[in-house]
């Protein structure tokens, strides 16, 4: 890591950047234009957020508050947990623990800074991590390993068995920083009694771990209230996600990112409810008028991102979709599989229900909810088994009238690169043109954005899609 970066606290930098950004839209147009002049690199992102109207502003406010919470955790006597994206943070909020979600923070940093988080990513390797480890953790994690972020009190991740690379990064961080570590382990099956019981037992142990490391008892009344809020938020998300089925998709591509980033980092918080309500209102109006959410107002193609999106510098990917007239119908990160959601109906036995009648029921609810978060849900078992990645992808592509399917990940993603070739072959056999992106969603040094864009264009042209 270049020495000058070590002079700045990473959380502080990000926090201040987002705080300033969140304040900009409150001013006059002239003030906004002036502020944008001083944001040479952040311009594309700021533009995307500001132009998204109230939802964009709410998103900025929410992200700003997320950082504010991290920065003020110590003075408020709260503990900080390093955790992963496929984990509902409500259980931490119920114990007054502030989550630092590495992947969300890496994506944010990558979007905001011109040179991305390269230095922080490399720092992880400088202190011993393998260079091939997933960039989604390595980004923000590098700052914490360099002790340039708030001090982490303990580490919890729920990926062992699904994404060992992810679990390994968290285990590395815990060892390197000498902090307690708890792993939630996921078996290869989902929805059967045996694995549900395993999840429940595992979550009970996690609560013991949290109680030990915070010195507090789990407040079940608070947990119940939070679960209810999360469930209401999931309902709003569900309604938004249903709009992916409309032709054209009434939402801009940014909404999907806003939905899942909020879901991973801030669910259970009022700010997220405000964001969702704002997006929903916006989308409903658009839908009523039959408008596309794309800037041009013209939807030329519908693509399903069967894995993750692309997060490098300045929201290049989102701008690209907008320019080309491509509506995405979400990614694997989008859906949460509440049993009443439309798509869950198409995959029998894939959803979960909510029950807050007793502590045991609540823990089970959280366990089942988390078991269905992205990646740990459908990539846990062999991709061609019941309700796993292939069936889920096909069901969603069909429901949302996708015309093609695109895979994007990181080279660190062993669990998908391990089978994405036969997986995509199966999708092609079902009639979907499939493009496998070879880049790193968080690191342009693996494949430059220019090449990525060119390969996408080539795919759309060769397959006669655009």
């Amino acid at each position, binding site marked *: *890591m*270049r*020495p*000058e970066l070590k002079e700045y606290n990473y959380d502080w930098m990000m926090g201040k950047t987002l705080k300033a950004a969140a304040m900009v839209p409150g001013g006059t147009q002239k003030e906004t234009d002036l502020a944008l002049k001083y944001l040479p690199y952040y311009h594309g992102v700021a533009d995307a957020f500001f132009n998204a109207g109230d939802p964009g502003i709410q998103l900025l406010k929410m992200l700003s508050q997320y950082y504010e919470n991290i920065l003020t955790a110590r003075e408020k006597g709260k503990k900080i947990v390093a955790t992963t994206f496929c984990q509902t943070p409500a259980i931490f909020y119920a114990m007054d623990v502030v989550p630092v979600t590495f992947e969300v923070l890496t994506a944010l940093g990558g979007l905001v800074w011109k*040179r991305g988080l*390269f230095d922080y990513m*490399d*720092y992880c*390797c*400088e202190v*011993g991590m393998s*260079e091939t480890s997933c960039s989604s953790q390595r980004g923000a994690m590098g700052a914490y390993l360099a002790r340039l972020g708030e001090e982490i009190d303990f580490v919890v991740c729920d990926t062992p068995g699904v994404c060992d690379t992810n679990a390994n990064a968290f285990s590395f961080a815990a060892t390197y920083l000498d902090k307690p570590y708890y792993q939630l382990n996921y078996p290869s099956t989902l929805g059967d009694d045996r694995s549900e019981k395993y999840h429940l037992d595992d979550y009970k142990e996690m609560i013991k771990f949290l109680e030990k490391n915070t010195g507090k008892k789990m407040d079940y009344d608070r947990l119940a209230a939070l679960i209810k809020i999360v469930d209401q938020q999931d309902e709003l998300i569900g309604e938004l996600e249903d709009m992916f089925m409309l032709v054209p998709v009434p939402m801009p591509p940014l909404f999907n990112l806003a939905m899942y980033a909020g879901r991973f980092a801030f669910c259970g918080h009022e700010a997220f409810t405000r964001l969702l309500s704002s997006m929903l209102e916006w989308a409903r109006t658009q839908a009523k008028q039959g408008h596309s959410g794309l800037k041009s107002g013209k939807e030329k193609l519908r693509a399903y991102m069967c894995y993750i999106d692309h997060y490098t510098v300045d929201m290049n990917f989102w701008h690209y979709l907008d320019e080309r007239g491509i509506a995405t119908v979400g990614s694997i990160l989008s859906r949460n599989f509440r049993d009443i959601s439309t798509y869950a109906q198409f995959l029998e036995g894939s959803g979960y229900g909510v029950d807050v009648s007793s502590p045991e029921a609540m823990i089970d609810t959280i366990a089942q909810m988390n078991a269905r978060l992205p990646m740990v849900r459908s990539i846990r078992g062999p991709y061609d088994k019941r309700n796993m990645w292939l069936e889920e992808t096909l069901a969603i592509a069909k429901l949302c009238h996708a015309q093609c399917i695109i895979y994007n990940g990181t080279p660190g993603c062993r669990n998908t690169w391990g089978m994405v070739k036969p997986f995509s072959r199966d999708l092609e056999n079902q009639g979907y043109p499939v493009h496998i992106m070879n880049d790193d969603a968080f690191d*342009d*040094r*693996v*494949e*430059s*954005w*220019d*090449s990525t864009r*060119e390969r996408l264009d080539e795919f759309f042209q060769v397959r006669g899609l655009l």
Partner: protein
Amino acid sequence: MTIVAGCDVGSLTSKVVIMKSGRIVGSAIIKSRPKPKESAEVVMQAALDTAGLNMDDIARCTGTGYGREKISFVRDIRSEISCHGKGARWLLPSVRTIIDIGGQDCKAMKVDGDGRVIHFVANDKCASGTGRFLEVMAGVLGISIEELGMFSTGSNAPVTLASTCTVWAQADVIKFINSGVPFADIGAGINGAMAKRVAILANTVKPEGDILMTGGVAKNTGVVNTLEKLLGRKIKKTRKADPQMAGAIGAALFSMEKLKNIPGGGE
């Protein structure tokens, strides 16, 4: 006076240094031939010519580099890592950290006061982060490696390259050329990408004391300057000899040490 030699047969270049009383009296560098044995013989003859000596005048010779086991005239062989440590110490007595970028790999090492390697790391990737990377990129730009090194100073907007894979980086460079990006920005991007890969390695050994770069890339000012910025430390320059010869110098010094340990063998 005993005359010793060191022969470093690398993947891109082969070098020989002839020393007498701790001073270089002859040296040569050539582009490596397909067969290491042939490279060694040609470069040795060239070095002997510069010193006005014959093979018989050389009391002992140590071989190093990739082709070290194939050299016919050497008595001893040492790894190039040890040789670069030793050679760097001779070039700059205060050196404690050495970054050696060779044709096909890159190493960072720390040495003690005698030039003995106490810790090293070597890249285990493909050609990215090596001399070959720069050679390929210079080729795409249609310029010499030396010219490539001059870029960086004239650029305010270096391009971001796919730096983890030489093949992809090459494709990127071609694309930048076609879309009219100034050569200075592409060149600076190439040097920067190279420096970043080397910086990871250098930071892994936690640099201490004076840093010296050895190997051919030490002559690329673009890479060196960027690396200094990334490490936040000055990289020392040496005029005593060409830093690309460090491995061969170290090998010659090892020959000398061997002779000293043989009764009546050295000075």
